[in-house]
């Protein structure tokens, strides 16, 4: 057997990646299974193994969180033909099929491509789908419309073959104002539209992220002129490509690079990359300034159907647990065709929006949506819980997030909590990867198993009082059946302690976690 006599500092994944990032899915389909190496590289094509043996997941990339109704029908058709008709919305505004046989993959790729859909770079160590505020065009607080920038950035970086092999995934988001609805502080790169005097541009924060070691993004530039944002993003990606840890995949995200090098050193390197690429760095600033845009509330999106600044109506569709059948999805596309702007918008709380409605038609559309079995109110409230798919599909999950979702719906809908519906949101994630970012929610749950005298049972770690810039504090670890009671105690305590209009997170930050712990544990 071959000699391999040096201790090496390279991960197995890097070794596999070094052998090339391309796959022949027709060949794989003929063979009927993917090798270990192919499973890794499959991620570049948006394909992931499912928890269910023999099944695969494929993720359709939706840049900026918007697709045409034609694309939507195409996706519905693919789900119907290959994915048992099921569609799942992700917290990064993508759509996933979960029930794919390996033999279906090549056809699926071809069929998706017919209407300009793709799963390429849906997963893998690449620039992932760039997300944006769902109401990018019409939010009353927006500084500028970030959607086109999200889409253009995604295209530019995905077309850069020198960014195909990053140390790990690289997530970018665009937020229309400092209210940060697009979650810039927990992405690798967060672009936040800001106003400086009469001029609009972007504040750029980098190095945020959830996962086991969660980091809040730090400010890289206080102001970047709109037109330079793509080049700046590319320079950040280059920094990551060259400085991310390629040995320890658990510590390779940009957040670790920023933590390791420091924001100042990162900035210098990024400026050097810009220079090396011949980009104009004029106008880039990192001195703080007073943002002069319109004041915004804590949760600008905590509203139901509304009329945007463009005078057009918006109807929101709450997708129960983020999963729906291809038929209602087609029906929603049809509603957008008839009443709206012929697009469907996906949100980072796993919901769908129809935009461009005549305000007068809102009730009609709402009614149609209700007939399909969806609610059109309760967004950004206790009811609007986000649960990742958990053990339903995900091979990494430890707990059945959807069970907890169902258990908690019964609690938060109790009449006694009616007054605080808009005061707290709940995120539930099945594992520390935090696909549903539990640390930034008022109430967060992260799946785990809890040891007993012998054996172990499912449970969750519960955190309280999180937001993007200050992560939640740990309340405790609870077995799943005990959690409704825990939440009941927390919400009751919140009602006692809160000042009017205070969110749960603000109350926790004001009074500390101790009163809540006391309520739960005594």
């Amino acid at each position, binding site marked *: *057997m*071959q*000699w*391999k*006599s*040096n*201790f*090496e*500092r390279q991960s*197995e994944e890097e070794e596999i990646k070094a052998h090339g990032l391309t796959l022949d899915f027709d060949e794989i389909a003929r063979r009927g299974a993917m090798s270990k190496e192919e499973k890794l590289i499959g991620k570049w094509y948006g394909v992931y193994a499912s928890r269910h043996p023999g099944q695969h997941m494929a993720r359709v990339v939706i840049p900026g969180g918007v697709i045409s109704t034609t694309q939507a029908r195409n996706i519905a058709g693919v789900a119907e033909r290959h994915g048992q008709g099921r569609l799942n919305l992700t917290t990064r505004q993508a759509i996933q099929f979960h029930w794919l046989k390996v033999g279906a993959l090549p056809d699926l790729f071809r069929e998706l491509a017919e209407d300009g859909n793709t799963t390429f770079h849906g997963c893998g160590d690449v620039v992932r789908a760039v997300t944006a505020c769902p109401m990018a065009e019409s939010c009353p607080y927006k500084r500028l419309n970030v959607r086109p920038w999200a889409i253009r950035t995604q295209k530019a970086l995905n077309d850069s073959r020198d960014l195909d092999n990053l140390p790990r995934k690289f997530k970018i988001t665009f937020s229309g104002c400092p209210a940060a609805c697009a979650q810039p502080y927990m992405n690798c790169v967060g672009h936040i539209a800001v106003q400086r005097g009469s001029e609009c541009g972007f504040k750029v924060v980098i190095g945020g992220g959830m*996962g*086991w070691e969660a980091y809040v993004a730090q400010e890289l530039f206080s102001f970047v002129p709109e037109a330079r944002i793509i080049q700046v993003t590319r320079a950040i990606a280059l920094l990551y490509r060259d400085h991310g840890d390629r*040995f*320890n*995949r*658990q*510590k390779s995200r940009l957040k670790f690079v920023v933590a390791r090098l420091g924001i100042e050193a990162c900035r210098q390197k990024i400026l050097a990359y810009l220079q090396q690429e011949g980009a104009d760095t004029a106008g880039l600033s990192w001195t703080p300034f007073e943002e002069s845009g319109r004041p915004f509330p804590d949760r600008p999106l905590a509203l139901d159907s509304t009329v945007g600044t463009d005078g057009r109506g918006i109807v929101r569709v709450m997708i129960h647990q983020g999963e729906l059948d291809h038929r209602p999805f087609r029906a929603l596309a049809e509603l957008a065709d008839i009443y709206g702007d012929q697009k469907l918008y996906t949100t980072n709380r796993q919901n769908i929006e129809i935009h461009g409605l005549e305000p007068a038609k809102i009730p009609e559309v709402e009614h149609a949506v209700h007939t399909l079995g969806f609610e059109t109110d309760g967004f950004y409230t206790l009811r609007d819980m986000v649960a990742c798919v958990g053990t339903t599909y995900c091979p*990494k999950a*430890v707990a059945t997030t959807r069970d907890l979702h169902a258990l908690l719906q019964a609690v938060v809908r109790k009449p006694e909590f009616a007054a605080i519906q808009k005061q707290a949101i709940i995120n539930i994630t099945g*594992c*520390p*990867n935090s696909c549903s970012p539990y640390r930034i929610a008022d109430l967060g749950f992260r*799946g*785990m*198993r*809890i*040891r*007993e*005298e*012998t*054996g*172990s*049972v499912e449970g969750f*770690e519960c955190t309280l009082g999180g937001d993007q810039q200050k992560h939640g504090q740990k309340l*405790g670890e*609870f*077995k799943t059946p*005990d959690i409704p*009671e*825990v939440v009941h105690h927390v919400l009751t305590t919140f009602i006692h302690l809160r000042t009017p209009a205070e969110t749960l997170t603000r109350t926790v930050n004001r009074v500390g976690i101790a009163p809540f712990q006391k309520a*739960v*544990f005594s």
Partner: protein
Amino acid sequence: MNYPYCKATNPTEYSVVEGLGETAKDQKTLAKDIPCQAACPAKTDVPGYIEQIARGDLDAAYRINQECNVFPGVLGRICTRPCEDACRHHWTNTNGPVQICHLKRSSADHLSRPPTALPGWFPKTGKRIAVIGGGPAGLTAARELIRYGHAVTLFERRTTLGGMMLDGIPRFRLPLPTIKAEIALIVSSGIDVRTGECIDAARLTELEADYDAVVVATGTTLPRPLELDRPTASPPLPAGSIIPGLDFMKAYNDGQVTGLKGDVVVIGGGFTAVDCARSCARAAKRLLGDGGEVSIMYRRTEHHMAAELEELEEIRLENIQVRTLVTPLGLVTENGALSGVRFIRNKVQETASTGKPAILPIEGSEFVQPCHTLIVAIGQEQDRSLLPAGLTAGEGQKTNRPKIFFAGEFLTGSSDVIHAVAQGKAVASEIDRVLMGVERKKNHVTIEQMRHMGDGETGRQRAHDLQSPAPMPLTDIPGRARDNAEVEQGFTKEGIPVAATRCYLCHYKYSIDNDLCIHCDWCIEVAPRACIKKVSRLCTDADGFIQDYVETDVSAKATFIHIDSDACIRCGKCLRVCPVGAITMRKASLTPCLANPS
């Protein structure tokens, strides 16, 4: 709500997270985790030095060996290697054990700087100790006693130090410069050496009066007698017809055996028998197949011979016959000279019980093996003539006289160098305890968190385990015949890292803190082999030592996620993947702990 929940206690394999493990559990876990070290009589830190070799620091590797087993260059050639039999590589089909012994030699062969004597542990005590016998046990005892702060006088009957290393092992296996260098290193630590001084009972009594303690380590020097029939009323055979194995080896090493003629028979199955035969083959220039035969005749089977299969193969290449299952009965003479040895053949009687198979003579199977020189290498015994009347062995290394101690082969009977070294270390520690009234140096388990290896990174991968072992370059037969050259040449520069990277580095301990673990099983997914188990119950002994576990594949029944160090290859993948940081990498090593050191 029944909070806080009732949970099984978080299991630990060492008594402390880091620091000193001073309990029986720590010793047991260490012995289980590092089987080679446990098997080494001198408790050599095998993974410690192999890691140094793998990382390229051969000087450091030598130093570790020097500390643990005193004679790295010597033992790296001729050790009987109990460690290799215990090596974890033996447990699965991964190409045999780590070449622990040869690696030790490599560290001695490729030193970049000459080694220096080891520092003492304690200030001068003013105690004086006499050590009788300059072999491996005596030399080791002397070195260690010096380090305890005592003054040591070493008495040796011969004019040179070395004992069995010098006399009992042929130079083509153990070259003289290697022995000399390592002895000089020991002597340089300040031992008063008196060579050419033979100690008899009277002198021993004097020493007992003059010194605070006396170590008798004179080894086994008397050949064990072999009773053979001789033709009645035959005149005594000419001198040199029948030679005890050890005498022959000594003469050979001193260059006094030349031009051996006729057929040679060596009786015995131990290392000395093989060494004698190989030396004869050289002395008689039979390596290249000249006339006459050199034969090893052994009572039992090849399986029972001390030599490894490879060595048996080598000696056949050297034109030495090996005959097993033969028992000598008597001598045959011709014209007053030895002409043959009468043997009877044996058969193996397999017994159903667990006992050893019995060796039984086959009636009527007698035959005469031509023989002009007979070497009897069936072991040696202690020469007890230096003991004053009434002196007898006591408990352990003590005797019935408080100041006199026995060590090495003199105490244990025929053995080998590594056991002699262990004896030397033990007697030094025993004497220090007796003289000072307390145990001033204890070996505890030091447990170190490998924080600087935060990624759990040893650099090891499964591919390292599965490499073919490095070959040991050998001198060809004509070369061996020419100048008595050393047969094994030592690993090549290319071979050393191959041999070293195969070692699992068992001193690293990856373990899961079950209070942090969330049972995600990610570690199990990435593991290179079945090293991490879902476990419903851990079985501990009275000391809390985890002996075994009950595995389950059902999550609901899994109380713990447990790393089975017996299967761990120390790749660190689990540590890196664990999303809650529940896995730590620690290093456990046996460390001398000193009370009031110098």
